[in-house]
């Protein structure tokens, strides 16, 4: 292994290193397992004089979010982090941060809502809050993502908060070598935050208070459109895809590592008849499953879904044209509706003239262990579907950890 400035560290330490290298000025953190040690590492950096940051202790996550929102508003680069129940408690002010178009970066160390163990339901519960969402597969990606997130969030074409999700325990407390980028190189990549003093359209407040004012015409042309706040926010997220890709490319050029195209990463999808889609650490384990199956001559591939919001619709449509079946692995379930990834994927591909079959798998919820052979089984089933065989059910709760 090539030795640059590596250190063996946990995912939470990698996250704290990302915060330090990004020269965050205000952080507010309330402890909740498995996120707690991020705050401890940041406090240590500050105590040693290595980071000039105001770390604000608050009495709960609702306050931590309100604090970084205010700090960001007055021009500070801000960081907040949480897990599971804390994430849910933070929900309301998260809307305010994103509506204010404030470039707050948040780490969500996944902890499910039905126990201490990880799944993606905590961050998926925030899908309606108007934040960009990224998911990471290893500790290096956690560190790199924090730096890339500030560059993306603060870009004047974006101006939106970004949440970086990574699996609790599986990454938060697992140690592995992580390269610590050079501070000078990070400074070059990520210049100081330049706030825009008044970023809300003047008519916005007026529009929000005048029901029916939309009949007077679009607020841009003088009238007030009560829906404008939602439309503009929605379009801003959709339009951030280009910047996300651009930042990822530039990071790759400067640091020698990038994460697919910033939205998705395809792994051995060339000539693949069937593709599975995975997020977070399941995507990491899935690479081993794909390698094993490829060595047996089975044409399967993997798409790692890194950016869930905005959803990489175009990438999947393009993939959909050259694949016969896609198996979506969801580490979440929107109760009564289904897996968020499955729903989005079908939404993205519905309009294709010839669309692939789309299967759904629930796996890894409440920390259920997902092993290589579990993923092989899912990919096998997807390959069968690609070859026109009847597979049932279309959506299944993966039976994990069975015998060899």
């Amino acid at each position, binding site marked *: *292994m090539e030795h640059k400035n*590596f250190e*063996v560290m946990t995912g939470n330490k990698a996250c704290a290193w990302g915060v330090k290298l990004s020269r965050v000025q205000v952080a507010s953190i309330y402890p909740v397992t498995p996120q707690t040690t991020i705050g401890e590492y940041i406090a240590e950096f500050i105590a040693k004089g290595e980071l000039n940051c105001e770390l604000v202790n608050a009495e709960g996550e609702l306050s931590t979010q309100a604090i970084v929102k205010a700090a960001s508003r007055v021009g500070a680069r801000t960081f907040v982090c949480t897990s599971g129940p804390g994430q849910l408690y933070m929900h309301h002010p998260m809307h305010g941060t994103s509506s204010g178009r404030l470039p707050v970066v948040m780490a969500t160390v996944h902890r499910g809502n039905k126990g201490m163990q990880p799944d993606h339901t905590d961050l998926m519960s925030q899908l309606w809050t108007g934040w960009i969402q990224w998911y990471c597969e290893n500790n290096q990606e956690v560190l790199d993502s924090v730096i890339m997130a500030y560059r993306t969030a603060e870009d004047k074409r974006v101006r939106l908060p970004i949440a970086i999700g990574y699996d609790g325990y*599986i990454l938060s407390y*697992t*140690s592995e*070598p992580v390269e610590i980028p050079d501070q000078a190189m990070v400074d070059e990549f990520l210049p100081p935050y330049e706030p825009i003093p008044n970023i809300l359209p003047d008519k916005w407040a007026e529009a929000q208070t005048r029901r029916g004012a939309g009949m007077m015409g679009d607020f841009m042309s003088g009238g007030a459109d009560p829906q404008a706040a939602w439309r503009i926010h929605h379009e801003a997220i959709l339009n951030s895809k280009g910047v996300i890709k651009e930042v990822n490319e530039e990071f790759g050029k400067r640091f020698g590592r990038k994460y697919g195209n910033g939205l998705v990463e395809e792994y051995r999808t060339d000539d693949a008849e069937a593709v599975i889609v995975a997020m977070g650490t399941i995507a*990491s*384990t899935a690479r081993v499953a794909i390698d094993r199956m490829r060595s047996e001559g089975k044409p399967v591939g993997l798409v790692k879904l890194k950016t869930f919001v905005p959803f990489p619709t175009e990438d999947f449509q393009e993939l959909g044209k050259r694949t016969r079946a896609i198996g979506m692995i969801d580490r979440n379930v929107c109760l009564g509706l289904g897996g968020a990834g499955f729903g989005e994927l079908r939404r993205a591909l519905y309009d294709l003239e010839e669309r692939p079959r789309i299967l759904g798998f629930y796996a890894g919820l409440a920390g259920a262990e997902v*092993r290589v052979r579990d993923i092989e089984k899912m990919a096998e089933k997807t390959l069968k579907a690609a070859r026109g065989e009847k597979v049932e059910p279309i959506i299944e709760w993966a039976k994990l950890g069975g015998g060899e």
Partner: protein
Amino acid sequence: MIEIRLHGRGGQGAVTANEILAEAAYYEGKYAQAIPMYGTERRGAPVTAFLRLDEVRVRERDLVHNPDIVVVLDPAIAQRPSILEGLKAGGLVIANYPHPPERFPLGGNFRVTTVDATAIALETLKRPITNTAILGAFSKVTGLVKVESIEKAILHRFPGTLGEMNVKAVRMAFERTPAPIQAVGGVKEKDEEGPLSGSGYGLIRSAAGWRTFRPVWNYEKCTGCRICWIFCPDNAIGWGEERPTVDYRKCKGCGICVNECPTKAVEFKREEI
């Protein structure tokens, strides 16, 4: 890829040992992935940790199910057949155990070596924290990580006197660990620790095996003040006929009673294995 599983008890430092090994391996150019397994954090409760060593980045994110090597930090846990679960045929067990490998109680298709890491820890650290000593044994019998790298990783993590004391423990264990032998003991059918009802934790298992030391009462000195009875965190001390009684199945050997007794009526005695 080499896969390793560590068994210990909360407070013995299995998670730290795992991270030190990972760092030491990394110094030698290996990729290392150290995974801790947390349950309810409780001093004395069994803890497991996993380590993968490879030449390239480890992508598997599941736990280790078929270890090549099992490392046991606790002599009572070392006697339990469950430590052998999934161990590869011909695998290796490195155990903190006060007797030579010939007397190791478990048998099967594996090699085993033992070192009295508790004695070494008591000698060097004055506490039964066996995590660093066992790493000396690991280095010696596996050759996977040089003892110098382990020492460097320890000093990186614990600079100063604490680090040096731990380095001493590592060296002592390195010298005292014999070459592994083919395991000769007979595998017992079942683990011995059966369930036991205890207040506060619902149904719990006997904590008897958790002890390095056992509290012993000297009723001549006891004034019946009930302080030990109030302070025992595991409800192991009962009250009968104006004096404290102890249920050794519940006692985990934390030493709080010894510490709190105002008349020094409770004394700690080393458990024998």
